[in-house]
């Protein structure tokens, strides 16, 4: 008996993997049912449903990039402090000094990549009509995931705290000041008055809610940091779970009826 067999016959191995190696048909089926990570998949699938030229694999790529963003993001959180004093300095150190500074490149390019692959995934789903019944609701979940992906990228854009960051957020978040009724420069905001005192001012409107201040400052950095690292990722993780689950429940990967 060689070493490999010894390991595969040990009590530890068998307690982790509850079946022999998936080398025959029976065990290839069993492995899909008894492994936590694999049980997302069905046991068998239509051949055309996994043809790369049909699916483009863009949903899977997006999910992979989300995982890569999570891992690199958590590692970056060990280095980065979201304060006016340190934010820029820490990014500078990541660029010039820190051994694994490439984590920032991986995180940034992964984020750009994720925006692109989400679009391509939606493009494929639309062009194959895969949003049609019975998958209507999963398309809606997908649209929310698209929105959250953009917001993840947008909130992360501020964190390096350089000129590129604060002015991009100033331009983007500045739109909120024009929200109808709820922005202090939005149509109809003047109509909301209580006894002659305006309710919507630049310290109480939608932009203020987004930035935590009247301009992009330390409050914004803190707010965007928490949104970027905790709030939105949690929401995305939940919706991804629903999205995947519904793919299975709505008839598996799409194909001609």
């Amino acid at each position, binding site marked *: 008996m060689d070493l490999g067999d010894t390991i595969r016959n040990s009590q530890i191995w068998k307690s982790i993997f509850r079946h022999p190696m*998936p080398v025959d048909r029976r065990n290839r089926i069993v492995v*899909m049912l008894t492994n936590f990570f*694999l049980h997302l998949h069905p*046991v*068998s*699938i*239509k*051949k*055309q449903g996994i043809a790369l*030229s049909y699916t*483009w694999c863009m949903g899977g790529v997006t999910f992979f990039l989300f995982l890569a963003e999570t891992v690199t993001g958590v590692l970056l959180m060990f280095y980065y402090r979201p304060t006016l004093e340190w934010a*820029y300095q820490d990014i500078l150190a990541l*660029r010039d000094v820190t051994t694994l500074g*490439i984590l920032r*490149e*991986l995180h*940034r390019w992964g984020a*750009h990549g994720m*925006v*692109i692959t989400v679009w*391509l995934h939606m*493009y494929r789903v639309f*062009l*194959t*009509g895969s*949003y*049609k*019944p019975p998958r*209507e609701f999963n398309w809606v979940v997908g*649209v*929310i995931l698209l929105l959250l992906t*953009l917001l993840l*990228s*947008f909130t992360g854009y501020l964190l*390096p*705290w*350089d*000129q*590129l960051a604060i*002015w991009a957020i100033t*331009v983007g978040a*500045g*739109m*909120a*000041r*024009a*929200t*109808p009724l709820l*922005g202090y*420069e*939005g*149509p*109809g905001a*003047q109509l909301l008055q209580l006894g002659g005192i305006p309710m919507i001012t630049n310290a109480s409107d939608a932009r203020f809610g987004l930035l935590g201040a009247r*301009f*992009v*400052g330390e409050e914004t950095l803190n707010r965007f940091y928490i949104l970027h690292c905790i709030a939105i990722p949690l929401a995305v993780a939940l919706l991804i779970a629903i999205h995947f689950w519904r793919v299975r429940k709505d008839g598996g990967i*799409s*194909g*001609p009826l």
Partner: protein
Amino acid sequence: MHTNVAEFLEDISGFLGSYYLTLGIMNALAALYLWKQRGKGALALLWLVVGMVYVILSPLAMSGSAAAVPQLPEGLRNFIDANTGPVIYSVGTTAILVILYLFRAFFVRPVVAWSILNLSLLYMGLSMADPEFAAIVTKPDNVPIVALVFLLGFFTWLATSKAVENDRRAEEGLPPQEKEDNEKVLVWPDLVYTELICMLALTAILLLWGIGLKAPLEEPASSVKTPNPSKAPWYFLGLQEMLVYFDPWYAGVVLPSLIVVGLMAVPYIDFNRKGNGYYTISERPFSYLMFQFGFLELWITLIILGTFLRGPNWNFFGPYEIWDTHKVLALNNVDLSQYFWEGLLGRGMPKASPGAPTFTALGYILLRELPGILVLGMYFLLLPPLMATTIFRGFFVKMGFVRYMVLANLLLFMASLPIKMVLRWSFNLKYIVSVPEYFLNF
């Protein structure tokens, strides 16, 4: 920005040299692939020759001397700069998309698609020898958009060629290609291994990208030094471009919200049950065209415009033009109310006397903007029933009132952007309804 062209060419020579070499290898591989198939020898020879041309261009580009580096003639570049603007750009891209759509059966042929790919890559290479073009394209955050353009081109070709094939089969009474492979396979190993290979390839791509291209980091944030232009992140630049034509409340809040709502509504307003799970165009031309117009024209090309062609003060700059902060473009845009009262009737604008009560002032505002309010009222209230009884008669019958109204309104909101663009270009129209008193300009 590079001021010294000779220095710039030397800097970029290494990149350009390897770029052309890669294109040469790419074509050689295509030639090899075709050579192995029967009866494709002539095509293989063609791409081999093209590949050899690239291989010859490579050392020329590598030399880094202005005389040898392949580039577009300066006259042509100046001509392009002088003759492009938002109008040419938008009309041109729309025209190109229409031509691609109408003659899709021709454009999806591998030999045609490969030629187009070669031409666009050659154009990129020639243009990269221009310092202004290179400066904007190689900005680290802009590189993904270049990738996006080529990825979209590839995937649009892939999807269209499958759709063309399926539509041809449908005419012959055959089921779509996707239905042929209905045999079931086990997920382990067929899918699990594909996923594993994809993950490894992606990790490699991400690592190479990270090593090759540094993430941007500019000067520390300063709330007093406003950069010109100030741009939102690239995926929002289509929205920022809409600010040229609409006020922030509409371009920055209402339209983005409607894009999200409209996308969510898609499965509920598309009553056509055909084309579920396979590529087709002729079985669902309406939804296909609406989506492609919204996505490729109104979203993607506006992002490209906003990223590469909008410079200081959000002025339009040709791809080879220096971003001059002092470029001034005369803007004499006129409101519809001005056209009506001053132009048509030749009298002053209705205006409440100073100190008039709010109610009176409001009445005068309504009177002043009456033409625009009527136009908008007709657009949003009259057009849906009018369309329901004419061009969308069949839709209305099949969809019912609520669904039809959602569809009609979403279409009208989407169309408001290109309509406003055309009105701006042709009549310098600023606002249809302009109530700056209440920040309500449309």
